[in-house]
């Protein structure tokens, strides 16, 4: 016997992500899903973003890590509400994990929800969390071939933060080449060149976020 199924394997995740998207929209919250390799600087970017925006916007953070609460501790020091998801080995966050995490956060005064995914350029790209935008961080020492090698995430992202830009010269990163590849994969992506530790590009990035939050509020 042949049973016609025609069912999306990720249907359950996608339905839940759609519910989260609707819920966040009703609350007027702009949500980003921050994705990169381990060590690209996601948490430092997040700290610097919180420091610049926390007096202007209500921010909440969900931290995804395989284990340890180190990243959440770093964010909590900035006085921003944060909930840690320890994935216990899973290489990505899914909508169910996010739904559980959101129950631990008071979202009434939140304008911007930042979800820091598990450090990984592959798996998180497949799982919709209900965010408004995927933000990919690529740090210069990782090499200029990353957009071409991991096109899935670079295609889906709205913004690229090209981080550790202060190391451009010593790392031999060919920026023109990386951006050329990127333009073929995703011509609509917005790029900010940043150095989270030196503060380069962070004001521009934060302004982009603040503008998106304002747009979302208007809707």
């Amino acid at each position, binding site marked *: *016997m*042949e*049973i*016609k*199924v*025609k*069912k*999306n*394997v*990720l*249907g*359950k*995740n996608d339905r839940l992500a759609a519910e989260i998207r609707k819920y966040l929209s009703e609350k007027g919250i702009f949500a980003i899903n921050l994705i990169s390799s381990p060590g690209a600087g996601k948490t430092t970017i997040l700290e610097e973003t919180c420091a610049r925006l926390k007096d202007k916007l209500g921010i909440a953070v969900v931290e995804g890590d395989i284990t340890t609460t180190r990243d959440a501790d770093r964010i909590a020091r900035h006085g921003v509400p944060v909930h840690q998801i320890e994935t216990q080995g*899973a*290489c*990505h966050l*899914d909508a169910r994990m996010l739904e559980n995490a959101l129950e631990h956060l008071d979202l009434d005064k939140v304008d911007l929800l930042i979800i820091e995914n598990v450090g990984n350029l*592959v*798996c998180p*790209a*497949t*799982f919709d969390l209900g965010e408004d935008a995927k933000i990919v961080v690529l740090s210069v020492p990782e090499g200029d071939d990353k957009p*071409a090698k991991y*096109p*899935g995430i*670079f*295609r889906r992202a709205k913004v690229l933060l090209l981080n550790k830009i202060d190391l451009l010269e010593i790392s031999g990163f060919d920026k023109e080449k990386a951006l050329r590849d990127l*333009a*073929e*994969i*995703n*011509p609509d992506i917005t790029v900010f060149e940043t150095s989270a530790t030196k503060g380069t590009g962070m004001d521009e990035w934060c302004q982009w976020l603040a503008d998106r939050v304002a747009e979302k509020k208007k809707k």
Partner: protein
Amino acid sequence: MHELSIAMSLMEIIEEECRKNQVKKVRKVKVVVGEMAGIVPDSLKFSFEVVSQDTVADGAELELEVRPVTALCQDCSEEFVVEEFRFRCPKCGSRNAKRLGGDELYIDYIETDD
């Protein structure tokens, strides 16, 4: 290795369909995977072997049909296959292309012994 989570979702759907149709043994599962779905076919096959053990689908063949990424040029209406995620129209060179297919990830059908 998110293929393991994918294989588990796959197994959930298979078990649900088998209950509904009162099937006791699955012979084959056909899954359609787009090149942009971010799935490594061999890895999914291996994960499926692991999670299907001692279930209705124990020993079942997992057939994967890989679909290419396709796009429609918004300037000259050419429909084309996207190689290596390069969304550039081969006819007019425009980058203004809308993706049509390639992110599929669905169970097409299940073949059973019944």
